């Protein structure tokens, strides 16, 4: 059922936010902030997770959340002390709830005992406070599990006849005495509606017992001036079903229910304390009319008779609740039965419904992406227009030029506004880190505190999605390799608890994400030794400290002497670099021996628009991402050399770089003279370089990336396509794959 899937998607979205909130609140609580609003917030969050989970039948989740919630309720009421142990238990349990939610989302089954230890601890803590009370473990759950069937609750006295089912064939006559208290009207309950519901059980005769009306000046709109005696003839009513009709007014009225079988009435009087006065009132009632209401709603119009009766005493201004509502019954036909409800307001059923007043709307990301793309195109078209205005045009068409200038401003504004729609706080990625650090600390026996700064900094959603893996790797690295064991830290005169600081800030057109630790810093001797062993660095090559530090991003490099369960797995920091490059970013590390390490990620604000260099190869336009270009050199000035294998190399500042002729690589021929061509020196993964030879360099511009795989098929060496201002398609050169492709070829 697609509706259900949609609700589930909403629920899981909401759970992610609530789990985030739980993390945040408990972090603050752990720091010592015991503000009661925090406790309310965590209670609400767990409560909402449980509530939604119940709707979808996620039993394991609901049961666990229920125990969690029960404990939080006691904590909130001050019945259970929020000790350090309880906080730690709660924080661990957030992870468990997250796992339950995750399992519910993917449909995976968790071990039946999952979270049982923590649940038992919750229950024990809760029981401890309510010693002697029934086991909190089971009782509330039974309540919670009930399918919603309105049942008469809180009966003052057990109804002796409750178990006596009415004869299935043959009618039973019931007489019901109904005397409202003022509270019934104060809570907006309406006797007429009760009659309507009661009338659905059979044929009914309602007789009002009127009390004399006070003078208008003394009239109380919520006063009780009328009680009713009801006679019901039904083949299906029972004392229970009748009670059920009065469920919402239980305690707000006096009710007597009597059953008459044959000629021998069996009377049951309930709540009769208030009756005598009304019995007397009934006698005093001068006018008494009966009206008959059956299950058919239209007949309720007869209520108008009653209102006519009351007309002379009806207060005009006060709109008294009981009278007003009764009187309204007449002009409102056919509202009683359920089946009439939908025809009652057909124009309102406009399927869209109008969620008026929401502070935000939820839009499919696809729709936003489409807008982002089109705005990107608009920006490019506009810049093309601007570029084509030469001085002659400027002189001749001043109005047009002014218009285009305004268009440029508006387009930029539109671009910013659209990007803001897709921007999300980095919080969603940062929020996964506390758990990571906790798990890591407990596995390694270290003490680590995670600080996050600037988590409301916003980045394009597409960048955020790509950020999670590299950032996880970096934080793991800091916690696993950076922070020392508590003993070592103490011996070095540092605080026992290490700190990993995660921060985000916007700097110009970039976002800086910094992972910093106060650990031992990078062991440069060891890094250099390994780099030499593995041939990453030549035996005599001299390197600065900074260059050595950044070697940790070199492919296949790992300094962990034993492969750690946590950061190891044979993948090193080079993965971070390649992931970050993929999204057009860069990463840099600095380290201070004995004091700590700082890794800085620099990311573009958005991925939708790419700064590129437009080049020409064999008559076709190609674009090369500006971020990967180091420099461009005219062929005539380039220092080419030949390798014994026949490959061409370029010598730049003492370094030999492989040369790839794009025309040859893409199997085309060019008639461009070799000397008038250009070399574009690019940097690929891990500081490795490649020199691309192109026919001509046209200029720099921004382009909107179009996926080739979605629209055509994957081509090796091409990262995607783009549509230029003149309508031509240009392919985006994939520097990384060209580099690894040549490495492969030369190796072969």
């Amino acid at each position: 059922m697609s509706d259900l899937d949609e609700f589930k998607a909403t629920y899981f979205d909401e759970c992610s936010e609530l789990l985030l909130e739980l993390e945040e609140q408990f972090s603050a609580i752990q720091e010592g902030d015991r503000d009661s609003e925090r406790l309310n917030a965590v209670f609400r969050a767990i409560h909402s997770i449980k509530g939604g989970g119940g709707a979808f039948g996620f039993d394991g989740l609901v049961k666990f959340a229920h125990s969690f919630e029960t404990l939080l309720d006691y904590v909130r009421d001050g019945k259970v002390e929020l000790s350090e142990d309880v906080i730690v238990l709660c924080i661990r349990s957030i992870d468990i709830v997250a796992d339950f939610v995750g399992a519910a989302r993917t449909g995976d089954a968790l071990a039946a005992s999952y979270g049982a230890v923590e649940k038992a601890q919750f229950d024990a803590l809760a029981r401890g406070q309510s010693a002697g009370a029934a086991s909190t473990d089971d009782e509330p759950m039974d309540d919670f599990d009930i399918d919603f069937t309105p049942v008469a609750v809180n009966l003052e006295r057990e109804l002796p006849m409750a178990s006596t089912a009415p004869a299935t064939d043959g009618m039973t006559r019931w007489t019901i005495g109904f005397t409202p208290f003022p509270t019934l009207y104060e809570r907006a309950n309406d006797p007429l509606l009760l009659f309507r519901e009661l009338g659905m059980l059979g044929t009914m005769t309602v007789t009002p017992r009127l009390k004399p009306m006070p003078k208008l000046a003394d009239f109380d709109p919520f006063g009780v001036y009328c009680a009713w005696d009801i006679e019901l003839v039904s083949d299906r009513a029972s004392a229970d079903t009748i009670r059920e009709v009065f469920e919402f007014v239980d305690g707000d009225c006096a009710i007597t229910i009597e059953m008459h079988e044959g000629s021998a009435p069996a009377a049951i009087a309930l709540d009769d304390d208030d009756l005598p006065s009304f019995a007397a009132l009934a006698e005093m009632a001068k006018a008494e009319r009966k009206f008959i209401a059956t299950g058919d709603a239209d007949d309720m119009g007869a209520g108008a008779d009653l209102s006519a009766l009351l007309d002379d005493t009806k207060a005009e201004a006060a709109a008294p609740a009981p009278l007003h509502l009764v009187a309204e019954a007449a002009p409102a036909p056919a509202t009683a039965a359920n089946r009439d409800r939908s025809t009652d307001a057909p124009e309102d059923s406009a399927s869209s419904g109008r969620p008026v007043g929401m502070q935000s709307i939820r839009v499919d990301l696809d729709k936003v992406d489409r807008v982002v793309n089109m705005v990107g195109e608009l920006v490019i078209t506009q810049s093309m227009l601007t570029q084509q205005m030469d001085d002659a045009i400027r002189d001749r068409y001043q109005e047009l030029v002014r218009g285009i200038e305004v268009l440029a401003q508006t387009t930029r504004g539109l671009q910013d506004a659209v990007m803001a729609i897709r921007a999300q706080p980095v919080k969603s990625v940062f929020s996964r880190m506390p758990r990571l650090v906790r798990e890591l600390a407990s596995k390694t026996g270290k003490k680590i505190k995670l600080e996050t700064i600037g988590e409301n900094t916003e980045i394009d959603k597409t960048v955020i999605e790509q950020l999670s893996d590299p950032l996880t790797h970096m934080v793991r690295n800091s916690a696993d390799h950076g922070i020392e064991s508590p003993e070592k830290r103490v011996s070095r005169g540092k605080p026992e608890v290490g700190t990993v600081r995660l921060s985000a800030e916007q700097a110009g057109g970039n976002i800086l994400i910094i992972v910093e630790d106060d650990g031992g810093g990078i062991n440069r001797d060891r890094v250099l030794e390994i780099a030499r062993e593995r041939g990453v660095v030549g035996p005599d090559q001299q390197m600065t400290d900074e260059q050595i530090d950044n070697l940790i991003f070199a492919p296949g490099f790992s300094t962990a002497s034993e492969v750690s369960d946590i950061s190891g797995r044979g993948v090193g920091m080079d993965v971070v670099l390649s992931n970050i490059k993929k999204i057009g970013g860069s990463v840099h590390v600095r380290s201070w021996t004995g004091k700590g390490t700082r890794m800085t990620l620099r990311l573009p604000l958005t991925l939708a628009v790419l700064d590129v260099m437009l080049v020409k190869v064999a008559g076709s336009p190609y674009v090369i991402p500006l971020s990967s270009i180091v420099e461009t050199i005219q062929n005539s000035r380039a220092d080419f050399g030949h390798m014994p294998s026949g490959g061409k190399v370029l010598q730049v500042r003492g370094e030999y770089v492989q040369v790839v002729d794009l025309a040859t690589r893409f199997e085309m021929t060019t008639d461009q003279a070799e000397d008038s061509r250009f070399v574009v020196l690019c940097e690929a993964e891990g500081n490795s370089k490649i020199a691309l030879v192109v026919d001509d360099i046209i200029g720099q511009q921004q382009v909107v990336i179009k996926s080739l795989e979605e629209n055509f098929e994957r081509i090796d060496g091409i990262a995607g396509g783009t549509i230029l201002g003149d309508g031509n398609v240009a392919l985006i050169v994939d520097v990384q794959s060209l580099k690894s492709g040549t490495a492969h070829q030369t190796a072969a």
Partner: protein
Amino acid sequence: MRVLTVDDSRTILAMLHHTLTNAGFEVLQAENGQVGLDMLGREDVDVVITDINMPVMDGIEFIKQVRATGKHQSLPILILTTETSQDKRDQGRAAGGTGWIVKPFDPEKLISVINKVVH
């Protein structure tokens, strides 16, 4: 027929919206009591369905405030809650709640409960 739904859970709001619009109701949504109260100041509704546990203004306070405005003394208010502990429900009724709906709710039951309290 217009229903104001007040709940801080988007899931519950979405489910209510779906069930109620299918049944021909027009649905207004508010994410907490304060927003609901503001909305009642601007909009006419026939019935209110409200959660109890909400940030900013909870359901109990919301009901009290609604009843305190003269305009809404006879507006039916249904309390939507998973609290079966009777506690919250009684508090809600004491504040002026007309009836209640227990979460998770069955769509048909939801409609029949609404029909119990509105014309």
